């Protein structure tokens, strides 16, 4: 088993996320993380999926996803050819006594403190999952009160967009000129 990141361009229409999630559920594929959001094109949303599967299963996942009519394009993005990032918000116990140590950790990981009161601080960090894991480990000793993490998002390096090479569907005439195709040959 190994982790794979898929960028899935889908039509921005109701029910698309349910179709994708339902496919994974009924075919027993395991989703590690999922992030959905708008793209540069208002008609298209982008789902970033991280899945933990074998190579053979990965091909099945991609082909099954591709059968969903609302799925326009699927690309596998590797950590080499793409920027991959998650967002972490974590609330930890922090008092005047250990605040100096907290600040040192936050600085080391290029995170920032986005909220605080006398007894806690909330740290925000972005980056690759491994970096955030390390940060969490370093913060654990202060006492984690609550944490929330986004799914991974990923963007290909370089100047092109995934949508550039996928959004030119061919036009099929409808049955108007003589009914449905005649199969009785």
């Amino acid at each position, binding site marked *: 088993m190994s982790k794979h990141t898929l960028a899935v361009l889908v039509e921005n229409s109701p029910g698309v996320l349910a179709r994708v999630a339902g496919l994974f559920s009924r075919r027993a594929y395991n989703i590690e993380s999922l992030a959905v959001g708008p793209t540069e094109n208002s008609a298209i949303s982008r789902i970033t999926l991280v899945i933990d599967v074998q190579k053979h299963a990965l091909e099945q996942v991609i082909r099954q996803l591709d059968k969903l*009519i609302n799925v326009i394009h699927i690309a596998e993005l590797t950590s080499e050819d793409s920027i991959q990032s998650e967002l972490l918000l974590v609330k930890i116990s922090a008092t005047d006594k250990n605040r100096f140590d907290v600040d040192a950790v936050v600085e080391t990981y290029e995170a920032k403190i986005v909220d605080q009161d006398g007894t806690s601080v909330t740290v925000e960090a972005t980056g690759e999952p491994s970096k955030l894991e390390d940060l969490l480990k370093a913060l654990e000793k202060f006492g984690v009160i609550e944490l929330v993490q986004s799914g991974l998002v990923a963007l290909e390096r370089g100047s092109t967009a995934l949508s550039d090479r996928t959004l030119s*569907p061919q036009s099929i005439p409808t049955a108007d000129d003589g009914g*449905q195709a005649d199969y009785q040959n």
Partner: protein
Amino acid sequence: MATYNGTSMSGASALVKSLEASGVEVAFGIPGGAVLPLYDPLFDSKLRHILVRHEQGAGHAATGYAQVTGRAGVCIATSGPGATNLVTPLADAAMDSVPLVAITGQVPSAAIGTDAFQEADIRGITMPFTKHNFLVTNPNDIPRAIAEAFYIATSGRPGPVLVDVSKDALQAQTTFDFPSSISLAGYNPQIAPTNQAIEDAAALIARSSKPVFYVGGGVIKANAHRELLELAELLGAPVVTTLMALGSFPGSHPLHLGMPGMHGTVAAVTSLQKADLLITLGARFDDRVTGKLSTFAQNAKIIHADIDPAEISKNRFADVPIIGDLKVTIKALIPALTKALAKNRPDLTPWLRQMNSLRDKYPLGFDNPPDGAVSPQSVIQRIGKISDPDTIYVAGVGQHQMWASQFVSYEKPRTWLNSGGLGTMGYAVPAAMGAKVAAPDTTVWAIDGDGCFQMTNQELTTCALNNIPIKVAIINNESLGMVRQWQTLFYESRYSNTNLESKRVPNFPMLAEAMGCVGLSCDRPEDVDKTIEKAMSINDQPVVVDFRVHRDAMVWPMVAAGASNDDIQIARQTAPDWDSQEL
């Protein structure tokens, strides 16, 4: 229909006009609250609407119609329970790749999500087993949704599409605008295979000494039966046709070894096990064919041609995948193979001799019941012999289905309809109704079980009232026969809840008569032929024959569920005599 473009009309009228523009001639359905606005303009349409007695019947009838014509079948239901009653036929059509367009009414858009009367999220419910589905709440979107639904249902790997339309969208006014073309960013089925794939396949075939054509229902869907015949005769290799493919290759052809799988012939099952190459055409390595997958065709390389890329290497790794329409694929394969064989033509004679000897040694057969009762297999065999060669057979699910697949020789495509993937009991009567509507001049026999028949027989009323004179043979063994067979074999003959007592109640001929059909009965072997002939002589009314048959007959051969195909049994505790075979 584009002539109506620009005309102002209701969403409901736009839907009817869109169905007409899509070439629809027949729809099966039942009206109800949310879909009522649609039934008003439907009243004036030239489109024939057949009022069924249960929405499940509408769905299976549309399937039967589609399986016979190759065109999309259409069914209509109202919201809530009307729509949920379509769930089984939609799942059935998805499993067997049947082009279907289901139209459902939905509660008004303002009420969606409020648990309104007769509200059901049918789009959500049917997502797993429709090829695609739509919820339309804007009347302007209706023509495009319908046009796209037909295109999606009938192109690529066919399948069911559901269009759910809210009542307010049906009632509101719109300006009709049927699209002249469709472009879907996320849907573009590959029709032509790559040259490389064809060359690789031809080269591999020309290097193989034990090839078998493993043919699935895709060949019928693609109307590629003529091409298949040419290809098979070109190579001269044996052909096996799956349950969904019966009729895609003439059953009586000397190269035909029969059906593979759980109840396949010894020759067909063994040919796959011993082959060095499977030329797989529109089949999907279903568990009922492969048996225990890890022991299936262990020495074979796999060529897998299918229009659905997701079928490639799903269950069995394909050495040479070919993605494309099968008609186009086989047409391309014929010249490529001719060329490859000119360079190197392997001698298939020993292989054919082995397989033919298996076929001769282990033909399908049955023993007559010891108590002198009617044998179920003989009834089906005689129907197949007495009926004219164009006859369409429609089976339910169970023992009678397997016997109908074994003891009728299917010579032409689209003459054998059954529920292969989902195994839907109750399929036969409504599907036969749809088949008869599609082919009114052809004899349509439903071969049904007494269990199946009691699930959907109310559609005989529909048949009687709408001049749809199907013939139904109930193979009445007063049991859920296949379940009983498994209880005999695997549950120490403990017949828990499989005794239907259908020789006592209901009285099938009387039930048939009550629904406006002719009811016949037969319980003596010597009366079988004349009863069939009597049924054949009635063409102005549906006929139901209660064939009261021996209860303990079993379907053989059999590969037990989860067992290896190598462990096929020709009768209880009886394996073929492998030692005398040179394999």
